């Protein structure tokens, strides 16, 4: 039993890491997709595409890792959460398919390039919005009866999930802008800074509303944050978030090239941490804790063997491919 509990901890860490990697990596390239729809100059668009071309498909595979880790390690959570977000998951998948296909097709189909351009930016935006709704519905919680989701497939149409959907649009745009500032130069970089500032304003408003709304929505979350002595332990979270916001804002208005991206990533870490503190240790929020949803020790152990071998290799390869494609990209090289 002791060993089983340790595995649950390890799987929780792998799942948390997988989901966070996905949010971060696909987050910035979905953000670039959104910015692609806003920046209309052809040479900018070519550069934006180039900046994510070598890595976007690898980023997307983290979604599969996250989804499968949830099914394998916490099948009960998978069986309750995924039906509750039936339509957001559907819309996200279709958005991702459309975006991925548009990415490949827009170059090969000169006749319909406008159509695939639209497909790329709307696919990115729709997938982002849907992911935000999934997150919002998750934080809000689901009605559960026995081992089933007991609500309807339209429960996600509510102010809180929709708000998070909009907030995530700003969030991914901020990550995307940070990436473009890092990878580009000149006018496009200056434009990305401007877009980054606007996105940051949206992100701050989003974080503020969620931070007020969530404890109001769930008394136990208010208790988690504001009871003594937790309020002391957790007070660094909002303080660090505020300092980070100020830092990102400053760096967007300076000449710093890496800081906006790094700062935005740190902001996402803090938001992720904040959600984890609110919901811990529930895997189906507010109802089912990690250990009740966990699969059997045999299941977890069997999969852990291969994962401990494959995951580090995948991580190393991901790091290596980012290293290979480091440096500034331009729109006119290599695509013609």
């Amino acid at each position, binding site marked *: 039993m002791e060993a089983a509990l340790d595995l649950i901890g390890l799987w929780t860490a792998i799942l948390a890491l997988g989901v966070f990697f996905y949010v971060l990596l696909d987050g910035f390239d979905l953000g670039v997709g959104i910015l692609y729809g806003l920046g209309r100059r052809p040479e900018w668009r070519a550069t934006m595409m180039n900046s994510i071309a070598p890595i976007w498909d690898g980023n997307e595979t983290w979604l599969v890792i996250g989804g499968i880790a949830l099914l394998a390690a916490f099948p*009960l959570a998978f069986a309750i959460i995924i039906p509750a977000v039936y339509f957001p998951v559907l819309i996200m998948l279709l958005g991702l398919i459309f975006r991925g296909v548009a990415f490949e097709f827009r170059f090969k189909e000169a006749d319909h390039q406008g159509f695939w351009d639209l497909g790329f930016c709307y696919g990115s935006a729709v997938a982002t919005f849907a992911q935000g709704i999934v997150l919002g519905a998750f934080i809000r919680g689901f009605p559960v009866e026995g081992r089933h*989701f007991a609500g309807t497939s339209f429960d996600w149409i509510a102010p809180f999930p929709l708000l998070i959907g909009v907030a995530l649009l700003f969030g991914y745009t901020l990550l995307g802008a940070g990436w473009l500032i890092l990878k580009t130069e000149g006018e496009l970089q200056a434009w990305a800074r401007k877009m980054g500032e606007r996105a940051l304003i949206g992100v701050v408003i989003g974080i503020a509303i969620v931070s007020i709304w969530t404890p109001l929505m769930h008394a136990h979350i208010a208790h988690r944050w504001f009871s003594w002595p937790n309020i002391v332990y957790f007070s660094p979270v909002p303080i660090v978030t505020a300092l980070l916001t100020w830092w990102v804002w400053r760096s967007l208005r300076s000449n710093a090239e890496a800081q906006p991206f790094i700062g935005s990533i740190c902001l996402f870490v803090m938001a992720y941490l904040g959600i984890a503190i609110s919901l811990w240790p529930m895997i189906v929020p507010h109802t089912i804790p990690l250990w009740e949803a966990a699969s059997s020790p045999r299941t977890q152990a069997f999969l852990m063997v291969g994962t401990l071998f494959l995951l580090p290799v995948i991580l190393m390869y*991901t790091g290596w491919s980012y290293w290979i494609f480091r440096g500034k990209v331009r729109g006119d090289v290599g695509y013609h």
Partner: protein
Amino acid sequence: MESEALLLSRLQFAWVVAWHILLPAFTVGLASYIAVLEGLHLFTGRSVYVRVSQFWIRIFAVSFGLGVVTGIVMPFQFGTNWSRFSDVAGDVISPLLAYEGLTAFFLEAAFLGVLLFGRNRVPPSIHFVAALMVAAGTLFSTFWILAVNSWMQTPTGHEMINGRFFPRDWFEIIFSPSFPYRLAHTVTAFYVTTGFVVLGVGAYTMRRGQTEEGRVMFTMAGLLLTVLVPLQVIIGDLHGLNTRDHQPAKLAAIEAIWETQSRVPLALFAIPDPEVERNRAVIEIPLAGSLVLTHSLDGTVRGLKEWPKEDRPPVAIVFWAFRIMVGIGLEMAGIILLGWILHWRGRLFTTPSFQRLCEFAMPTGFIAVLAGWTTTEVGRQPWTVYGLMRTAESVTPSLTALDVTISLALYVVIYLLVYPMALLFIVRIVRAGPAQAEALDVPISSGRPRGPVDALPGVASERSH
């Protein structure tokens, strides 16, 4: 209301998996073919193998990409529409699914890039190893997915606790009784499917005047099919005997046999009527059923009436899907035989009508795969886990008919948009032909070409004006 959501969920799963399976049916065989071509080039040094290999690598890239995107949809189906199945059987099937995902990810991350973009950057031997690893990776993926499917067909190695499946012995779970036969039958089917595509493209390439490349494809595919098509008949027979022993109701549906009897005829044509529990408009060969199914003239075969009506699969679909599959198998054997007759008369490469026939036969492998898959999956009904968990008990309880109607409609629209586009690109690559494939490996921005099909000369020039 609930039963409508169930039916629509089944349709939706059939829709997304049927489109998805077309890609592995092609890429598994193609990956192995590319590895063989790379090996031949490495050991003979003939440049024609590189041109042919590079040509197919480009087609592989488009197919593999679409396979990945449509593959992402699949695990989510288990959650969105089959959540009770995920809850009840998740402890057993999820690690196998996860290993499939991890294997595919690992392969894609580590070796696909080298295969697609590395020809001028790594030594030929490393490029060959990358091709081998990609081929091995596709086979590993097939292994894990079929392990899941076979366990659902012939479950072993688990134990039931509080109505849920738990693993008892992983070896027994993975190597369930139908697994070896299903794996052999499926991989052979995938190879045969690819073989007929390569055969047809080879014939087309020869017809377009690129004789050397066309002949390489045509000959290699022809030789492979000469071995695999007859082999598939034997494997299929063994798989059938396995089905008779472990899923007798499915076998009874395949042959539309209602009464348990010996000296069973083999129905060539029939309209099974489940209401009156007999067949209409029957054309049959006496005794042949027993001979095929039991390898003896007076062997006994169990009929559908041995099972209560609610435990029987839909007979007509299974019966006809099986006949389509076998019919295509006969058609394939006929083409191979015809090819050899022409070869013995010294006219294999000089008979335009035969080349045309080979071009028309290109899609038949895919149809056979879909028909075979329909036979085995519909034949498993009414169960998701054979004999233990019903399909009706597996569906997500919160779904309404409206929910699934909307999602199914969206999947239909998107797939009907995306698949023809991909097919169009592959057709363009085939039209451009392998002779031009040497003008490959275009300049690269920040390290690698933007898209896999990018190096295609025809496409590049179209884009520039």
